[in-house]
């Protein structure tokens, strides 16, 4: 072993000490410029030797790499190129227009509205992506057992429900003429409304319909995070006379901070995507564009107005926005880790 190899022996990656140590240093916190230092169990690359040994991992990863290159990263680059063109998806001679598409988008009040509405969706869904599933997950985690397992299964169902069928069910329930929600509201003497057709209620309605999926998905992810929390520390706190609320507040919630930051980011990512189907099926962006979002707008530009360039420019701005959101979420963590 050369010294450089010995130096490359990675410490356990931060925050993963509870996991089994990755064999062969897969994904370990290693600098890319250093040669791989196979441990005793990852001996195969060394044993096979030569280029064949070096090629083996790439062969195993080829299906994933090719798929992602062809269907994700290639298209991402191509979207960037498209965003500089004026093209109707059909004509053989797209025209290069530079940043015109971006300028038009920024000046387009409809796109501005869509951006604003997307932000509203994210903000409105944030509690359903963090606080609500966290509370439910802690509730289930504190009392493990049969009942918790059953609740967990039931609470995950919204993730599995077919979105179009689910949206149709909601449309029926919220139907202004004779839907059960209005029936019940009428019976209680509350105002009946055209929930999806009223500009001030359509966005909250779409938000609540989408919220179920967030609660369901994030409940499970919080559950996964809680599975790593040491229950014995809770018992110790109980012996010291801490109340359940104090234990939750000061012992459990702080350990979920990282997960919460991640799930808040996922909310920003998926709020737009998961509301998309509901918008298509239920409101078409209306009434008066009050339920519009950037994904729906992108879809309209590209496949209703056949303006590929503007659609691509919108896509690039979405990706840039997400990258920004990720930077905001991950920056404080990184600074703490390095500083």
């Amino acid at each position: 072993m050369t010294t450089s190899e010995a130096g490359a022996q990675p410490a356990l990656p931060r925050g993963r000490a509870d996991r089994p140590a990755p064999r062969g240093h897969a994904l370990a916190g290693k600098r890319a410029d250093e040669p791989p230092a196979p441990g005793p169990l990852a001996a195969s690359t060394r044993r096979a030797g030569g280029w064949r040994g070096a090629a083996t991992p790439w062969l195993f990863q080829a299906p994933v790499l090719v798929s992602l290159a062809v269907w994700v990263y290639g298209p991402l680059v191509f979207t960037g190129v498209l965003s500089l063109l004026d093209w109707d998806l059909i004509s053989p001679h797209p025209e290069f227009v530079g940043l015109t598409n971006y300028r038009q988008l920024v000046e387009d009040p409809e796109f501005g509205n869509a951006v604003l509405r997307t932000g509203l969706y994210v903000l409105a869904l944030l509690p359903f992506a963090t606080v609500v599933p966290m509370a439910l997950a802690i509730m289930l985690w504190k009392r493990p057992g049969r009942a918790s397992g059953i609740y967990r299964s039931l609470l995950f169902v919204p993730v599995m429900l077919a979105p179009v069928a689910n949206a149709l069910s909601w449309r029926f329930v919220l139907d202004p003429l004779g839907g059960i929600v209005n029936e019940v509201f009428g019976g209680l003497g509350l105002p009946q409304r055209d929930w999806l057709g009223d500009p001030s209620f359509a966005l909250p309605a779409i938000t609540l319909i989408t919220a179920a999926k967030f609660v369901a998905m994030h409940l499970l992810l919080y559950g996964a995070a809680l599975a790593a929390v040491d229950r014995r520390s809770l018992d110790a706190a109980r012996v010291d006379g801490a109340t359940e609320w104090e234990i939750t507040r000061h012992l459990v919630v702080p350990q979920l901070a990282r997960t919460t930051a991640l799930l808040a980011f996922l909310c920003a990512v998926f709020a737009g995507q998961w509301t998309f189907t509901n918008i298509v099926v239920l409101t078409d962006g209306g009434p008066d564009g009050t339920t519009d979002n950037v994904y729906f707008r992108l879809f309209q530009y590209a496949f209703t107005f056949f303006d590929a360039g503007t659609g691509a420019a919108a896509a690039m701005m979405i990706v840039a926005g997400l990258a920004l959101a990720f930077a905001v979420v991950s920056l404080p963590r990184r600074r703490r880790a390095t500083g």
Partner: protein
Amino acid sequence: MPPADRTAPAVTAADGASSGALATAIPLRRQPMPTRSMTENPTGGAAAVRGPAARRDRRWWRAARTAGRHGVLVAVVLAMLFPTLWALNTSFKPTSDVYDSSPLPIPATLANYRAAIDAFPIWQLLLNSFVTAAGVTVLHLLAGVLAGWSFVRYAHRGQRVVSALVLVALVVPPQALIIPDFLLVARLGWRDTFVGLIVPQLSTCSLAVLLLRQHILTVPATLLGAATLDGATDGEILRHVVLPLLRPALGAVAIVVFITTWNEFLWPALVAPSPEHTTVQMGLQLFQNQEGPEYGPLLAGAMLATIPIALIYALASRRITDAFLHSGLR
């Protein structure tokens, strides 16, 4: 909660009431150390001094809390599932009673289902969905096992870059890629074909890769070491050691991918917009446009699109949630 946890503090309290603080310490010491969480009543010692009234009070408080907890959970479950359950209920009512608000479909009828099947090629749509979902599932598992295995087994220069690419692909919104993906599929002549429906959905294979990697990480290192010492090649280890151990995880991931693909809407809407070639999700949307406000058959169609998934989930729900819970994905 095991019964031992519940009775032990009560004993403590009785002793404490009669003979003071010293006595409370002794039965406490006799208790087995709690290995799992003692979820409630941690302050047995303190309450003991206050006697039976406090004990009754505490018991009442505990019952109220349990009831409240179940109340909250049941309410959340009902709020989430109500529209689907109500649609299921309505789909069995006669067409004239669609807006009837009785909670059970009496008399029940299959008229709506018959109408839906007559008006729309539902069976064809379900078959299309099944073939598409099965195809995507196979591809995802294949890609996931191979890549997951290589992440665990090999270290190489590009490792971190590759895993970052896999992770980032998870959050790149598919809507941002649809224009080029659509153009590519159109150029290849894959519109309205299964290949066009299935292959591009490899773009979402990251989840399978990550979940399977996490599960492969739990295979004991000693097992792999022993197999290596016995002269097994890496391919043989993967086939004969890792895959058999991975079977439960594979099942769970397969179900998740199958259901996700079954539920996919955007891509089928784009590449296969005709009712004969599309999946049941897009089919429902077309059906909605065709039927307008005719809810009976529409809801019956929606239920037909939901029932296969509901059955799979009912049979395997624990396996799915466990696959996520113990995945170490955090």
